[in-house]
């Protein structure tokens, strides 16, 4: 008998082992909750495996009884038309099938309580990295208060080694509606709720890119509130921090574009450190070109992408709160030339 459990397992193995036909899937980028790479995600995945085993056994037993009853007790062709023996119940049998589920529930709740405690009540090591994540409609503001860094949509954290643990603790807030921070391979999700400060932690044990996205419906562009977490080696992370802490490069060749930036509505929402732009409604652009994507993952970041995005954000992200800037082609070229210097 094919149970959904077997079907799920076969499908999961299939997807994680091989790229799907017609869709080039890099298995490392599939955000599966069953390929954890961080301590809290491991804890959840272990519990999940245990729960799947128990429920799988229950399924096989009960569905087996059902199939057996359907086959064994079907009315036969040569039925004599009499009614079968009427049985109204049995204290013994009913007692048994009350007690056994009770014991199963007891075991499951104990295992669950243990993991809740392990993940939620984990002590924060003194060395832990602090990061604030603030949800906006429809992008992520990311701040490193002790390092003086403000960025957006792409979180950089250092890898944690067993000999030298370095978890990252996230403080989660929202500027408008409820959002949810979810990077499945690193940890379960936690909501970002206005007027409430939440926290969660990750402790990635492998470098690389981990994908996630907003998991709580937050309005029109909930779907394009994507999230990237880069887990860097210690050296790479330190280098990234150093670059981010610098002011924006003041490249004389882009002065005309900088003037466009400073004299149009851009600065109402966007900040670039070292310029008059200090708007906080949209993402900080100080090191815009250090990020791989634009519009919280709506499109890839490049000079061409930037130009198209500024011309019409609506084209890539319908409903986005950034308006089309209606710049003439000359100003647009200058502005893009300036923005591409913000490395």
């Amino acid at each position, binding site marked *: 008998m094919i149970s959904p459990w077997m079907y799920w397992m076969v499908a999961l193995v299939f997807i994680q082992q091989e790229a799907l036909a017609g869709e080039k899937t890099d298995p490392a980028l599939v955000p599966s909750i069953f390929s954890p790479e961080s301590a809290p995600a491991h804890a959840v995945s272990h519990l999940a495996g245990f729960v799947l085993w128990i429920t799988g056994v229950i399924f096989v037993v009960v569905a087996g009884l059902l199939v057996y009853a359907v086959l064994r007790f079907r009315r036969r062709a040569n039925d004599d038309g009499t009614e079968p023996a009427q049985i109204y119940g049995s204290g013994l049998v009913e007692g048994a099938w009350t007690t056994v589920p009770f014991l199963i529930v007891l075991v499951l709740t104990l295992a669950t309580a243990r993991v809740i405690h392990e993940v939620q009540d984990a002590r924060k090591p003194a060395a832990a990295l602090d990061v604030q994540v603030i949800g906006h409609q429809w992008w992520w503001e990311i701040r490193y208060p002790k390092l003086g860094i403000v960025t957006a949509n792409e979180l950089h954290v250092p890898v944690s080694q067993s000999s030298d643990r370095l978890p990252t603790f996230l403080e989660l807030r929202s500027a408008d*509606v409820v959002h949810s921070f979810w990077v499945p391979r690193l940890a379960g999700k936690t909501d970002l709720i206005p007027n409430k400060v939440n926290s969660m932690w990750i402790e990635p044990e492998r470098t690389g890119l981990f994908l996630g996205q907003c998991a709580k419906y937050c309005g029109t562009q909930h779907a394009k509130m994507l999230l990237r977490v880069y887990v860097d080696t210690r050296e790479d992370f330190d280098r990234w921090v150093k670059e981010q802490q610098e002011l924006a490069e003041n490249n004389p060749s882009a002065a005309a574009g900088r003037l466009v930036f400073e004299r149009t509505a851009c600065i109402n929402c966007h900040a670039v450190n070292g310029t008059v732009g200090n708007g906080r409604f949209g993402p900080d652009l100080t090191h815009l070109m250090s990020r791989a994507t634009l519009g919280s993952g709506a499109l890839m970041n490049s000079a061409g992408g930037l130009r198209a995005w500024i011309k019409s954000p609506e084209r890539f992200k319908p409903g986005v709160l950034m308006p089309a800037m209606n710049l003439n082609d000359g100003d647009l070229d200058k502005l893009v030339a300036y923005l591409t210097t913000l490395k």
Partner: protein
Amino acid sequence: MSPAIRTGDVGGTLPLVSKAETEKSFFDSIHSWLVTVDHKKLGLMYIMYGLFFLLIAGIEATLMRIQLAFPNNHFLSPQFFNQLFTVHGTTMVFFVGMPLVFGFANYLVPLMIGARDLAFPRLNAFGFWLSALGGVLLYFSFIGGEGMAGAGSAPDIGWFAYAPLTGKAFSKGHSTDYWILGLMVSGFGSIATAANVFTTILCMRCRGMTLSKMPLLAWLNLVMSGMVLLAVSPLTAAQIMLLLDRFAGSHFFDTQAGGSATLWMHFFWIFGHPEVYILIIPAFAFASEIIPVFSRKAIFGYPAMVGATVAIGFVSVSVWAHHMFTIGMTSASNTFFAISTMMVGIPTGIKIFNWLGTMWGGKLRFDTPMLFCIAFLFQFLIAGLTGIMLGAAPFNWQLNDSYFVVAHFHFTLVGGFLTMIFAAVYYWFPKATGRRFSETLGKWHFWLFVLGFHMTFDTMHIPGILGMPRRIYTYEAGRGWGVLNLIVTLGVLFQAIGILIFVFNLLRSARKGPPAGNDPWDAWTLEWATSSPPPEFNFAEIPTVKSRRPLWDIKHPTDPDWKYE
């Protein structure tokens, strides 16, 4: 027929007036439905209303599935997609689920407890028309309301409408107001009808029918209507508070002025979780009536079934925050709600085992209603087990708001509730219309629907496990979700054909089906003692019963139930 039960046959056929005088014009007949206070007509109107909205919400679901069949698809705009899932969810719960629940309660409860009508027939009509108005208000928003900035009309806030997205700052225009008013008005209707059903079951039972001799369907509807009174009231209160926020400048949920977003979540889920049981308990009720008849055996463990239902009713009001494991509650709260949630598994398990016990040693007849019951047992088992996975709070941190959850609750509501609604419609169709439906078409409906259902909803668990959140209008390629979503969408096709066959079968059989007779299934409860369709007064003489299966006693005078109960 024995003197213990007198059927209503005589009532409808006394030749006192000529045929011409009894024949009504089209408008007279419409008028008689509009002003009726008869529980059977109101019940049928509730059911037809629910089935009509089932088709509407099914079309909405189909549109969404087409959009999600491929990554980066542009079939629907994000605004329209968001409206669709909001209206689909709201419609399915409030204008499909609730009307079907109350429709069957209306039609069946008085017949099964030997009463002439509900306790308050005019309140009953009032409740129906209020609920009907609620649905009209919701759909009027498509033309009458304007949503979030640039989002056209119709509410796009999700069916659980989390604050502060519903505030004036984020949902301009009036579509959210139509959503609030539609639910509030239909909520008043639900409360009225629940009070009515509750009172009827407690006060209107025929002679001899003590609480312990009621059919299980009556018991389960008693628990269900009690839960409606408990659950719908906080929702109505929250809707009033939200209206005050939007129009009178209060700040209950207005986080920009110090209000609380989590307060709304608590209000909504203290309604929302019992609501799931409000829908599924009537499904249990149908299973508890249909499975015995087609197994040819009395229900196994009646007292345990009643006890388990009451236990579910109690536990269901202490599990609501398992929808909120990710909002940052303390570890103690999370543990409490994980435990209370898993405890629901115990009474639910008892029920499944008792149905299996009823089938055990029987002579199973696989008519269409029974086929749906067997599918229900299988599907509800899976829904319960994925529910346990979601109840394990840390597992829930991963699965919450993913497609796994969508698959889970569709297993409950489509694989459980709707499957039993099909069973119930087929089972009581001959009673309500006096005609038999086509068994062949019924079986086509069954197999197509079950095939499509499993294609769609078994598969849908996996994108959730692979990190796909719900309520996204599109998704990136290269995440391993594409092929799975295509399979999910293809399953919809089979379900849709199944549903169309169902509708065709009902419409055709209601006019052209062969006569059914009073008791086509050889069943045992009181509704089968009267004529099909029953006369307005149900029973010519109020029956007297001695056991839970009065018709069994009559059919087997040498071996009656009351000797053993």
